[in-house]
C-alpha cells in the first residue's frame, strides 16, 4: 500500500509543495519515483511533462519519507472547452511503472483558471488588444 500525503492541494506559482510519501508492506527491490507533472485532458491528443522528480529507495517494508518541490511559474492550471491542463504529484512504482496520482492546482491565487466558452458569433470580429492593431 502506498499513499501520497499533502498538506494542501492549491498552490501559487513559486510556492513550496511539501508532502509525505508513505509505504506499507512493499516488496524487496521496489523503488518509487515521486514526480511533479502536468498533463492535458480534453479533445484530441494528450500531452504531459515531468517537471521535477525525486527517487525514493525504501530500505524497510513499512516507512515514510518527506519530499519537496517548488511550484513552477508556468504553465498554470486551466480549463476550457477543448483542453484542461492539470498538475499532479505522481508516485510511480519501479520497475512496474504503476502510478498513484494526486491532482493539484498551480495558478495565481491557487485557483484553476476557467476559460469562457467560445462565443461563435464573436469569433474574429474584435481585434485582440495588443495583438492586432
Amino acid at each position: 500500500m502506498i499513499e501520497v500525503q499533502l498538506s494542501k492541494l492549491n498552490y501559487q506559482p513559486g510556492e513550496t509543495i511539501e508532502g509525505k510519501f508513505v509505504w506499507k508492506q512493499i516488496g524487496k527491490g521496489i523503488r518509487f519515483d515521486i514526480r511533479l507533472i502536468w498533463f492535458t485532458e480534453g479533445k484530441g491528443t494528450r500531452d504531459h511533462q515531468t517537471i521535477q522528480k525525486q527517487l525514493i529507495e525504501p530500505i524497510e517494508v513499512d516507512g515514510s519519507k518527506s519530499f519537496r518541490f517548488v511550484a513552477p511559474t508556468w504553465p498554470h492550471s486551466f480549463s476550457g472547452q477543448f483542453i484542461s491542463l492539470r498538475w499532479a504529484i505522481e508516485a510511480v512504482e519501479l520497475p512496474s511503472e504503476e502510478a498513484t496520482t494526486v491532482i493539484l492546482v498551480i495558478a495565481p491565487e491557487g485557483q484553476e483558471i476557467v476559460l469562457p466558452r467560445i462565443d461563435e458569433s464573436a469569433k474574429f470580429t474584435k481585434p485582440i488588444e495588443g495583438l492586432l492593431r
Partner: protein
Amino acid sequence: MIPARDNPFASHRVESLKYRYPGFDFDDAVARLEQMQWRAAILGPHGTGKTTLLLELHRYLQNSNNDRSKPSRIWFVPRDRSSRNQQWLELLEECSPQTILLVDGYERLSWSKRLQLLGLGPTWIRQSCLPKSIVVTTHRPVGLPVWIHTTSNSTTMEELLLELHPTASPETIDQARKLFTTRRGNIRDVFWKLYDSC
C-alpha cells in the same frame, strides 16, 4: 459549459474503455494470441476498436499483478514522416528481442520497415534488436495472421456511450444513433462529435 477535463467524451476517457463485442472474451483472446506466438494483426475499419484493443493488451502486459505480464512497448506510428523516422530509431534502441511490440498504424510504415518488423530485413538488424513478437493494427491484411477482426454495431456503441456518460439524455442517445449511421459505424467519430455537444 463542461470543462474539458470533465467532458464524458474526452480522449482520456475514451482511451480507457475496454474493447467489447458480443461474444468477445479477453482472456480467451490472449490465450489464442499466445498460440499465435504473439505475431498477429488486429484488422478492421476505422473506429471499430483496434486501438482500444491494443491499449487494453498493453495495459494487460504491463500489469505486474498479472502472471502473464511481459515487457512490451506500444508505438503509435506518427503521420508525419520525420517524427516517424526519429521514433523508429528510438524504438530500435529501446526494444530487445524479448519485447512484445504493439504497433498502432502499421500501414503508415514503409515497406522496408515492415519487412524488418516481420523479421525479413537485413540480418544484422534482425538478429540484434528487433522484437520477435509483434501485434499490429491495420485496415487491410498485411501478411500477419489475423488475431481479431474488429467490427462495430449500434448496440455496442450505445453500451460504450452509457459507460462514458451514464446520465446521457434520450436526445444524446438518439443523436449518437444517427451519427453512427452517417459515420458508417465509426464509433470514435461518434464520440468525437458528441464531445462538442456537451
